């Protein structure tokens, strides 16, 4: 009871402060309302997605999800984005607020932007609950485990932001591209084996994860699958070096080029790694950590990079 009471008071105070801040901004008056984008044709409000109902097209979206930000811009809702968190580094024009961090954001810090829609992917601090108390709608984009999850999130964001048609176009384009890439993959007698490196302590991912499932579609075989058969590491096991060396994967995919400064040369210098087929045949592929860990439309580029490097048998 005490906790509820406190929360309620906190929410009231925050609401009052927000109202005050908004009022002050309005009194300042310098801003023209012209920056509000016109509704895309066909956008109907109120719109309901899941348990969120929006009465009007959102014009001050706050995104605390790097993937969410990429999706919003991809479907043409970028002009409606007011603030994005410190990890949202793509596209470059997204209005990054370094003080907004997805890991430790509070309802208050988010509410200070007076958003009319908040996009979250991860909510350890119960930000969503606090925002709901303030009547600010929250859309969650949890980490996708399949490409269909991505499509759903894109469609949902399209409906919510008034860009349903553009979202469907993006999804359709992604589907076409992926089908094409899968078809273009070289036909090998045996599946191409690969080792995916998430960091330089040999954390990897299995075929049950988002990226892993895409590479499986291409017909690639993941050497990490043996390490987490029941999904107890949620598809992200740490591999033993002995296993990596003994598996001798045909390809090594580095998703730790930014975090850990890894590249083909650093891999070749590791003890015992210079004898691996992937190293000898130049099949150590450097990927962009950011794209490799997100589930937005750019995953198509990632897939294209990997498939282009598949050794022809």
């Amino acid at each position, binding site marked *: 009871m005490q906790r509820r009471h406190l929360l309620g008071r906190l929410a009231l105070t925050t609401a009052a402060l927000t109202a005050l801040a908004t009022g002050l901004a309005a009194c300042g008056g310098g801003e023209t309302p012209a920056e509000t984008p016109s509704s895309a044709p066909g956008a109907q409000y109120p719109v309901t997605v899941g348990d969120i109902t929006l009465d009007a097209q959102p014009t001050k979206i706050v995104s605390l999800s790097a993937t969410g930000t990429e999706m919003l811009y991809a479907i043409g809702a970028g002009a409606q984005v007011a603030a994005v968190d*410190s*990890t949202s580094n793509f596209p470059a024009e997204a209005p990054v607020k370094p003080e907004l*961090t*997805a*890991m*430790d954001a509070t309802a208050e810090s988010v509410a200070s932007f007076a958003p009319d829609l908040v996009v979250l992917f991860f909510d350890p601090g119960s930000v969503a609950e606090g925002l709901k108390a303030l009547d600010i709608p929250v859309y969650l984009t949890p980490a996708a485990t399949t490409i269909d999850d991505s499509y759903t999130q894109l469609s949902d964001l399209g409906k919510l932001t008034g860009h349903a048609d553009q979202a469907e176009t993006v999804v359709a384009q992604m589907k076409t591209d992926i089908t094409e890439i899968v078809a273009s993959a070289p036909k090998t007698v045996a599946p191409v084996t690969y080792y995916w490196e998430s*960091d*330089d*302590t*040999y*954390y990897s991912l299995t075929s049950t994860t988002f990226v892993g499932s895409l590479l499986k579609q291409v017909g690639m075989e993941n050497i990490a699958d*043996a*390490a*987490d058969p029941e999904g107890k*590491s949620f598809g992200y*096991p*740490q*591999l*033993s*070096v*002995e*296993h990596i*060396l*003994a598996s*001798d994967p045909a390809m090594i995919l580095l998703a730790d080029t*930014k*975090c*850990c*400064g890894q590249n083909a040369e*650093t891999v070749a210098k*590791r*003890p*015992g790694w210079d*004898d691996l087929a992937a190293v000898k045949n130049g099949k150590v592929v450097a990927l962009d950590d950011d794209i490799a860990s997100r589930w937005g439309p750019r995953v198509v580029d990632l897939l294209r990079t990997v498939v282009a490097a598949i050794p022809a048998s």
Partner: protein
Amino acid sequence: MSTGARSSARPRWIAAGLLAVGASLVLGVAVGPISLPPLRVAAELLDHIPFVDIDSGLTPTEANIVWLVRLPRVVLALLVGAMLALAGGCYQGVFRNPLADPMLLGVASGAGLGATLFITARAAGMPAAQGVLPIAAFAGAVGALMLTYLIGGVKSGGRNPTRLILAGVAVTSLLSAVQTYVQQRNADAIRQVYSWLLGRLSVSGWEEVLTVLPYVAVTTAVVLVMRRELDVLTVGDDEAAGLGLHPQRSRYILLAAASLGTAAAVSVAGLIGFVGIVVPHIVRLLAGPSYRSILPLSVLFGGTFLVLADLVARTAVAPGELPIGVVTAFAGAPFFILVMRTTRQEAV
């Protein structure tokens, strides 16, 4: 048990310790996530002795696994385990405090902060090689140690070692707070920080072995030479001075040696808890309270313990890895309780 019986028991415990080290080394090299015929592994190792040329029959990849992955890792676990246990025993004697361990005095949190700052700076775009990470951790450990000594009042020459422990506690919480802050501001580097904190034996090679070897050698030599002084110190400073020793000087030489060794171990292996506190206590319960036994036995059994713990970390979820810190805590705590309950009270 009389003193005479105990001192005659010491060589037997040393022999047992040497046997344990030998057995754990053999087991550690013979067993791994990839199963290899033990005889061929032995042949492969003999092949590396100068002027010995044996065809082990292993494929080049398997030979690499034995010589470049498994053996250096086992050797490093031995060195780090020996170092942490020796330092733990040393701290317990110097502070006359059974709860003292290498992670005290801010060494661990300093190393953690050094590593965290390095990882986040590199994530922010600072160009630096991975090999610099141990140096950053080492600098952090030594920096924290100096801060602790400064606050603890080395110059004031306080006879109460509790001051230094309290300073260590204060420095530890300050540095931990700074580390948490840095982590929160750099969420993208957080996983790397944690994987470092949980132990880095899994990515070690001969390079790490060569990095710690000099420190381990110097520390072990200094501490073992001074083991008699440690026995006298436990009686009391006045008694030690009466016996012609300089208790304060001995204390700081021992602390500096143990801390330097710990910093070196932590900088290559990450933070591995429990070894420094459990091993010396178990040794004490088995072989008696004299530091002349505790210190050398801590070296032997500490090394053995970490080699075996790492064996579990490598094989329990093969081909995956368990964090070694989890294994040491999981195995160490119940074993400690078992020894405490089955040994006579007076030995504690």
